[in-house]
């Protein structure tokens, strides 16, 4: 019973010429919430689907609760709850009917009526799945993942399509899962979700882990490299500003009109930046010196350009 919730070493998965997962390592202790964070196509869903036994790896080993999901699926599935991306239900099935069907698969399920109520689905029990809103479908899918009292749940983008209230509710529920000793592996695009929920965050890009640690450890890394942010008109020549600063400082226009100076920020640097802006005849607005948040760590590591 002391096996890790999930342990992955050297995982590789290819689809034709595309390598979706490229030597990924992961160790998730029991009773923790681990967030896999990464841009679209980073390999998060593929990794989770291999853990769920839906795909087989091309190389590497995967152990879930000490079992091999590809070989020991029948023993593993009763112990694991799964929320696939985009849900999964008969278009014509009623919400309660679907949840009760999944509940009969478990030996000692939660009360379906209660779970629908706490997830705000009490008014949609007899509504066909296709007529539920996206957020309601997501909540029903979450209910299906939890109904069997699993030891471990895999949640693939659990709050996608949910309004802020529903998202808060789900976060609260995930907190309750952790309190009760359920292990949670979730994938997300939302920095706030990873930052406020997860014990551990793994940033995944191009099929491999590029950073790992608690949210505070990740944002504290290079903490001495505070940064200076300001807004001004778009298109300033950042190379000129970098040249005005001592060697080693990086200046970026992270989005049009939003500038970032990375390096050790002292009063002299602030003065240099503002006087350089004055020379350019522009006003530096919203000047801010501070530590990075998880989003900046994420963008730093995975690049800023939009992937296709």
């Amino acid at each position, binding site marked *: 019973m002391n096996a890790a919730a999930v342990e992955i070493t050297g995982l590789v998965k290819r689809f034709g010429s595309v390598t979706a997962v490229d030597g990924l390592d992961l160790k998730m202790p029991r009773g923790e919430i681990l967030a896999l964070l990464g841009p679209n196509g980073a390999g998060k869903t593929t990794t989770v689907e291999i853990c769920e036994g839906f795909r087989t790896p091309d190389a590497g080993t995967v152990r879930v609760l000490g079992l091999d999901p590809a070989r020991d699926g029948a023993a593993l*599935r*009763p112990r694991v709850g799964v929320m696939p991306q985009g849900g999964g239900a008969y278009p014509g099935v009623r919400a309660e009917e679907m949840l*009760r069907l999944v509940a009969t698969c478990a030996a000692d399920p*939660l009360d379906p009526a209660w779970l629908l109520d706490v997830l705000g689905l009490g008014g949609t029990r007899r509504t066909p799945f296709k007529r539920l809103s996206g957020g309601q479908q997501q909540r029903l899918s979450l209910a299906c993942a939890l109904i069997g009292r699993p030891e471990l749940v895999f949640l693939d983008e659990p709050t996608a399509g949910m309004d802020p209230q529903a998202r808060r509710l789900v976060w*609260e529920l995930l*907190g*309750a899962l952790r309190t009760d000793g*359920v292990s949670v592996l979730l994938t997300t695009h939302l920095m706030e979700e990873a930052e406020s929920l997860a014990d551990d965050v793994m940033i995944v890009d191009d099929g491999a882990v590029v950073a790992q640690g608690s949210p505070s450890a990740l944002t504290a890394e290079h903490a001495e490299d505070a940064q200076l942010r300001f807004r001004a008109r778009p298109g300033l020549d950042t190379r000129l500003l970098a040249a005005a600063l001592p060697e080693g400082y990086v200046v970026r226009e992270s989005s049009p009109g939003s500038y970032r100076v990375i390096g050790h920020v002292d009063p002299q640097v602030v003065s240099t930046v503002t006087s350089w802006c004055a020379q350019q005849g522009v006003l530096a607005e919203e000047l801010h010196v501070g530590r990075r948040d998880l989003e900046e760590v994420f963008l730093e590591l995975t690049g800023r350009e939009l992937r296709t």
Partner: protein
Amino acid sequence: MTTSRFAPGTFTPAPGRGRLGRMLATHARVETALTLRHGEQILLTLLIPLALLLGLSLLDVLPAGEFAGMERVDWITPRILALAVLSSAFTGQAIALGFDRRYGVLKRLSATALPRWLLVAGRLVAALVVVALQVLVLGGVAALLGWSPSAAGIAFGVVLLALGTLCFGALGVLLGGALKAEAVLALANIVWFVLLLAGGILMVPSALPDAYATVVALLPSGALAEGLHAALVDGAFSAGSCAVLAVWAAVAAAIATRTTKLT
């Protein structure tokens, strides 16, 4: 954070697999309910066979030589029952499976403790229930039209209907589990139409050229229609028809276990 609406211990793990009998019953009940709730499925499985039963029994559209002195309804009813099986177990089943895969139903259910074999078994039980309901409705209407099946052949007829349902069910899973939903929809309807007109359901093999008649008798549609005719008209057991259906069922099931995809 404010106090949680979830008392500690609410989600304490207690994993385990449910009872197999209950899983099978619930899965089959949901599948049956979805079929009966679905308008297009009702049209295909009940209204079209019913319209053909009424039309061909009451109107003088079939060549009289076909039923040589028999009541028209006695001749047409076994063939309509064969059509009913083709419609629900094959065409309806294939289309439903194609779209269930599209909507992630199979993935959702196979992520639970439900064993894989039960995913298929639940659908087949549902198919048998739907066929039983079709037979009750169509047989009841036929009886009102004066249908008098051979009493000796009714048990044979039930065996053939069950075997036919398993055979067409396996073929439906084979088609619905392999291709994209739209391709399944198109192909399942084309096959339905071709088998109805040229596969031995409405056209009797004996009325066809020899070589073609042999082929039709070896099709599951031809075998089921001829077997039901032998049972319900002549009270005879057609071992040949059963053998043809069993072989098709075995081959389709063997291929389907390799080709059926979850999504």
